[in-house]
């Protein structure tokens, strides 16, 4: 079994600050981290490989600093890491990102055929969840999104049994291998990294490829050029006016509120029994 996990380096949006004058990111305010969903993706690969045996590769696209998230993935238990890094990739939207990653996957698959690709449900910076299904289409393998459990991997039959969150509940799905999964956080808990992994990660040097290392790449499909979407403008959402402030002591305010609510009874479905 060979699983490739796509991992992205993202600014920690929990702490990120926006410069209110320019509406741009204050990058210094946010440390770069491994996209949390991708950490769960790596962890799930580790869980699967523990049962089936095999190899976990991680693949990232980004600037040279993105090697940090590959090292982090090695800590969790990945065996190898690949970074594709080139100016030509810069400014990519989801369409161009999935194109570049699928070309790298093609190259990885030449050395060792890929049985499964795992992505995060979404990246917390781009927040789209579109890259995973995009890669699957480009590789022509079935995508299964919003996965909450990998129930069974059957290597003989080349199938996998999966639970996914669908719009109105959970589904149990069987997919042929190779396939691509995108995972929810609840799929697993990130385990403490074993010491040997930590040591390996410190010394680990990922394979770094530029566009020239990939085959049959159409440069018009990469980066900014290959991105059909552009950001038109940025704006802070219009600030609403707000309504009525109730006045007086807390008793008076409570009384006023009760009065208002009793008048608005038509809004409420009134029910007289429990």
């Amino acid at each position, binding site marked *: 079994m060979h699983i490739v996990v796509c991992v992205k380096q993202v600014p920690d949006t929990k702490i990120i600050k926006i410069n209110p004058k320019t509406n741009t990111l204050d990058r210094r305010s946010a440390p770069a981290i491994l996209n949390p969903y991708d950490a769960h993706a790596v962890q799930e690969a580790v869980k699967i490989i523990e049962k089936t045996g095999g190899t976990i590769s991680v693949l990232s696209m980004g600037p040279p600093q993105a090697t940090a998230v590959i090292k982090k993935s090695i800590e969790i238990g990945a065996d190898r890491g690949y970074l594709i890094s080139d100016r030509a990739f810069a400014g990519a939207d989801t369409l161009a990102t999935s194109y570049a990653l699928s070309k790298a996957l093609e190259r990885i698959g030449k050395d060792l055929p890929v049985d499964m690709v795992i992505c995060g449900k979404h990246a917390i910076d781009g927040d789209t969840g579109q890259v995973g299904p995009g890669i699957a289409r480009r590789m022509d393998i079935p995508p299964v999104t919003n996965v909450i459990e990998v129930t069974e991997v059957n290597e003989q039959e080349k199938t996998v049994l999966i639970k996914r969150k669908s719009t109105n509940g959970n589904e149990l799905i069987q*997919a042929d291998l190779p396939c691509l999964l995108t995972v929810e956080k609840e799929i697993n808990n990130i385990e403490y990294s074993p010491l040997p992994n930590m040591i390996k990660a410190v010394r680990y040097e990922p394979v770094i490829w530029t566009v020239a290392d990939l085959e049959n790449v159409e440069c018009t499909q990469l980066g900014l050029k290959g991105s059909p979407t552009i950001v038109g403008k940025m704006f802070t959402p219009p600030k609403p006016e707000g309504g009525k402030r109730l006045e007086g002591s807390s008793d008076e305010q409570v009384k006023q509120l009760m009065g208002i*609510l009793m008048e608005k009874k038509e809004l409420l479905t009134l029910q007289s029994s429990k």
Partner: protein
Amino acid sequence: MKLEEYQGVWVFIEQNDRVIEGVSLELLGAGRKLADKLNVSLAGVLLGEGIKPLASEVITGGADEVYVIDHPVLKDYRTESYMKCIMLLAEKYKPEIFLYGATPNGKDLASAVATDLNTGLTADTTMLDVDVDNRLLEASRPAFGGNIMATILCKKHRPQMATVRPKVMKALEPDTARAGKIIEETISLAEEDMRTKVFQIVKDVTKKASLAEAHVIVCGGKGMGDLQNFGLLYELAETIGASVGGTRDVVEAGWLPHHLQIGQTGETVTPKIYFAVAVSGAIQHVVGMKNSEIIIAINKDPNAPIFDVATYGIVGDAMEIIPKLIEEFKQVPINQGGEISYA
């Protein structure tokens, strides 16, 4: 690509168990406005098995046309079969704008379709407009963790596609007098060719019954102080028959499970009455509740941003106000509305 060959606004009509998802009707409402501005027709795309009867609902919801593909293989949603249908229709009829609900299945489908159509797709849109002069869809969405909005454009590719979050657009009142055209298409699909099989669907009844569908919500924030004080909100909720939700900070403090989080990274809710108690009103929270009909904010800080979205604001200490409210509601005889219930 000849952009002018592409015309019309399309909405993917998501149905599950032959029930149309609310977001699809909301998109017909939003799509109607775009189509009228552009002076083109609005069409719904309806896929599934035994779903023809739903077509009239799409027309009363605002569409001029409905494209229907009814096939046994389409019984349950699957990326591969559904996208084949969409590709067939989109390549044949060439819409200029194509909207999908940002549900798990809608996002899955749109992402796959965008790749094969080689076009742009904006995710999780919360505002939609169109520039009539250059016929560009302006799809705006929260960016960088919701602190600001970004308007995404797709200038040189068609269709212009977007997924749109549920409950931010408004559905139209169903108009049974509306006339529309139903266009049936056929496709050859074979179960043996499918690489995925759906074995079982376990419907999520609990979620539907709680926040997303609740008519009255009591939402607590970090200002409640601790888990014990937070308990006051349960008491209020019980007295009036409401559901309890919370902010992300409350969930992170472990006072509530994640599925009760309201906001950008939680549920979007649109109850008739929303109590925001000791909630500051951060933008990421507000996007998930601002379409509630009546918002009542209780906060001790008169400058808290929650007051900007509140219909009624009370400046005061929640520990004092909430017990009083509970008392008052207990006084109200049942038949006068002492049970504000959401059935």
